[in-house]
């Protein structure tokens, strides 16, 4: 027997009481379910034993996860799968458990999946694959992890990529669409002769479209765009006009538009119409602009304007011509009718005698008719001309004309003096006609008994003279250089008040008995000079003679490098 003191015994009892109460507590706790597990040393190794309710929380976690979770044997047999997974593959839970995971993988992906599964047996692996169940293909991302050594299973987490794939698809579509749009845009720019640019107002960065480079005569993106570089292309006269609006554009809400000239890299002159506008693109302050090549438009507008003026003039003279021509052509015919009726009458009254007078009149009328028709044809031919302009020496033309009038000159005892005339671009036949008519007039309207004297001279018109009191009504082409040829005679002259009238077709200042002619000569002269972009005017004094001024340009088209043209605002 031990010699234990009563104190020792009491202490031991206290200790036992404590341990007992603790044990009781433990049992109570187990009974009431307030403990989930306990750790205990078993065979020298610590082990954890789980009581009923513990894995509940984990279960809930896995089940409610919005990812698929499975537990697979090392052969790939599904021993557990969560609610999400069954829903994903639209197969009831009971049917999934017990099937092989490989059967759920789409055939094309199976091999790769098997590789990944094999890898996972020794660690983990992640891969994209496609599930194929009930004829539905589901793209997924799977993460495989071996749960060894604790469990001889492989855990698998499945993430549905359908939406992601859809989005990817959309993005690819959008990207393709955008690429096509860009191509179309670039093509459109090329076709429409438009270039565009963007300017970031904060960084000053400038971006040009490919076509803008091309319009400047450069390769796309040939240089780094900058304002200074661009101004290098702009015509010096227009530079300042451009600088100001450009710096103001960001502040103004209205777009600015300006047309100016540029010279391309290869020396071509073009007209650009530039429109720029400020935009606020997601907080970035920018301006965007387009540049349209309006060079041909400018040329066309001018051509159009000229054509319209031509057309107006043509119409005017056609109307005038038609009214007067029909009237004058009627006259001989009417006379023929009148005289024949008179003749008939007289023949009835008296036996034929002295009626040659009437017959002569009839003959005369028919002759007049022919002459009129000839002249009218002449005149109308001048209205539809397609003849070519060539360089002709007016001195030669004049000399030829003189030859035609040899006899008449002798008859009238006329003297002709000619100063040196210039060489011009003209239609030879028409200028011939022109000089012919002027000469014919000069030799027709001579004063009786006084030898006719005709002087032909010329000078170059000063540019400012094209708009003076005499010439302003002709609207001469300011870009051309004009020669003024002067035909002066000492004949019967005319009142200055009729100076314009005489150029009207068939218009006469004297009647038929006094001077022959159909009255078409000067009208024809006017038509001819107008066709040459020139003009004709007359000055006269009764009984003192007349002077005809013929204005003809030296060339038909302006030489570009000679003439400085003003900017054309479109």
């Amino acid at each position: 027997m031990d010699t234990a003191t009563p104190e020792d015994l009491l202490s031991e009892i206290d200790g036992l009481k404590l341990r007992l109460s603790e044990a009781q507590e433990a049992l109570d706790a187990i009974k009431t379910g307030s403990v989930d597990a306990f750790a205990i040393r078993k065979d020298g190794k610590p082990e954890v034993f789980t009581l009923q309710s513990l894995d509940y929380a984990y279960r809930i976690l896995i089940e409610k996860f919005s990812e698929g979770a499975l537990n697979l044997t090392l052969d790939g047999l599904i021993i557990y799968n969560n609610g999400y997974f069954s829903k994903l593959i639209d197969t009831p839970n009971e049917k999934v458990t017990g099937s092989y995971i490989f059967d759920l993988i789409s055939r094309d992906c199976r091999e790769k999946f098997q590789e990944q599964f094999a890898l996972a047996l020794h660690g983990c692996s992640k891969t994209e694959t496609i599930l194929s169940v009930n004829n539905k293909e589901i793209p997924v991302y799977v993460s495989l992890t071996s749960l060894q050594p604790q469990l001889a299973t492989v855990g698998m987490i499945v993430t549905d990529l359908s939406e992601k794939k859809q989005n990817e698809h959309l993005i690819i579509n959008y990207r393709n669409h955008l690429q096509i749009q860009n191509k179309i845009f670039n093509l459109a720019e090329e076709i429409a002769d438009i270039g565009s640019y963007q300017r970031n107002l904060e960084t000053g960065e400038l971006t040009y479209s490919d076509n803008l480079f091309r319009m400047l005569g450069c390769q796309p993106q040939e240089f780094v765009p900058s304002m200074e570089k661009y101004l290098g292309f702009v015509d010096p006269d227009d530079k300042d006009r451009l600088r100001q609006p450009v710096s103001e554009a960001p502040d103004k809400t209205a777009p600015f538009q300006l047309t100016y000239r540029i010279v391309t890299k290869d020396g071509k002159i073009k007209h650009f119409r530039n429109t720029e506008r400020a935009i606020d693109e997601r907080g970035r302050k920018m301006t965007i602009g387009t540049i349209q090549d309006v060079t041909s438009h400018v040329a066309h507008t001018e051509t159009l304007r000229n054509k319209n003026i031509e057309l107006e003039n043509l119409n005017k003279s056609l109307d005038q011509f038609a009214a007067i021509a029909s009237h004058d052509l009627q006259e001989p015919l009417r006379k023929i009718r009148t005289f024949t009726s008179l003749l008939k009458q007289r023949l009835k009254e008296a036996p034929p005698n002295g009626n040659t007078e009437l017959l002569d009149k009839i003959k005369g009328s028919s002759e007049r008719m022919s002459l009129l028709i000839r002249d009218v044809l002449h005149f109308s031919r001048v209205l539809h001309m397609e003849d070519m302009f060539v360089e002709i020496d007016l001195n030669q033309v004049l000399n030829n004309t003189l030859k035609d009038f040899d006899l008449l000159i002798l008859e009238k005892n006329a003297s002709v003096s000619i100063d040196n005339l210039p060489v011009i671009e003209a239609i030879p036949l028409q200028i011939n006609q022109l000089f012919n008519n002027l000469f014919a007039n000069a030799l027709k309207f001579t004063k009786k008994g006084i030898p006719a004297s005709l002087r032909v001279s010329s000078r170059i018109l000063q540019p400012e003279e094209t708009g003076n009191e005499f010439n302003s009504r002709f609207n001469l082409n300011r870009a051309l250089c004009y020669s003024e040829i002067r035909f002066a005679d000492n004949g019967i002259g005319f009142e200055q008040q009729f100076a314009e009238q005489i150029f009207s077709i068939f218009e006469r200042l004297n009647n038929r008995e006094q001077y022959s002619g159909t009255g078409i000569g000067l009208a024809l002269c006017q038509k001819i000079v107008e066709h040459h972009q020139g003009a004709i005017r007359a000055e006269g004094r009764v009984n003192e003679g007349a002077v005809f001024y013929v204005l003809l340009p030296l060339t038909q088209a302006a030489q570009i490098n000679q003439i400085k043209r003003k900017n054309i605002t479109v």
Partner: protein
Amino acid sequence: MTENITIFIADDDEDDKQLFIDSAREVNERIHFVTASDGQEALRLLKEEQNVRPDYIFLDLRMPRFSGKQCLEEIRKDKRLHDIPVFIYTTSTDERDSAELRQLGAVHFISKPADSGDVYYILSVVLETKWDLSYET
């Protein structure tokens, strides 16, 4: 009628003028004619105060220098002349001309007939009618 009347005719066409005079004489052999060959001459003759005031004025439209229309306008402005009946005697058959000239004060617009007989007829009608000019503006 037997009173002496004076007819003024301006026409650049001698044949037409002669035909007119011959036909008028057949209607009334005692007509006195004053003639002009162009618009300028016509106005000069008409405005000269010492000349006889004509009872009828015939004007061709298309004449050298001043046209018949211009003459008509001048006549209508002239106090001495404006109540004389003015006839436009012309080759024109244009109705627009007719309307325009009547507007300007011409009493009648006559298109020159081709047939000489018609000239006689027209003149006989004209000369036998009393022309009322009360509508003038």
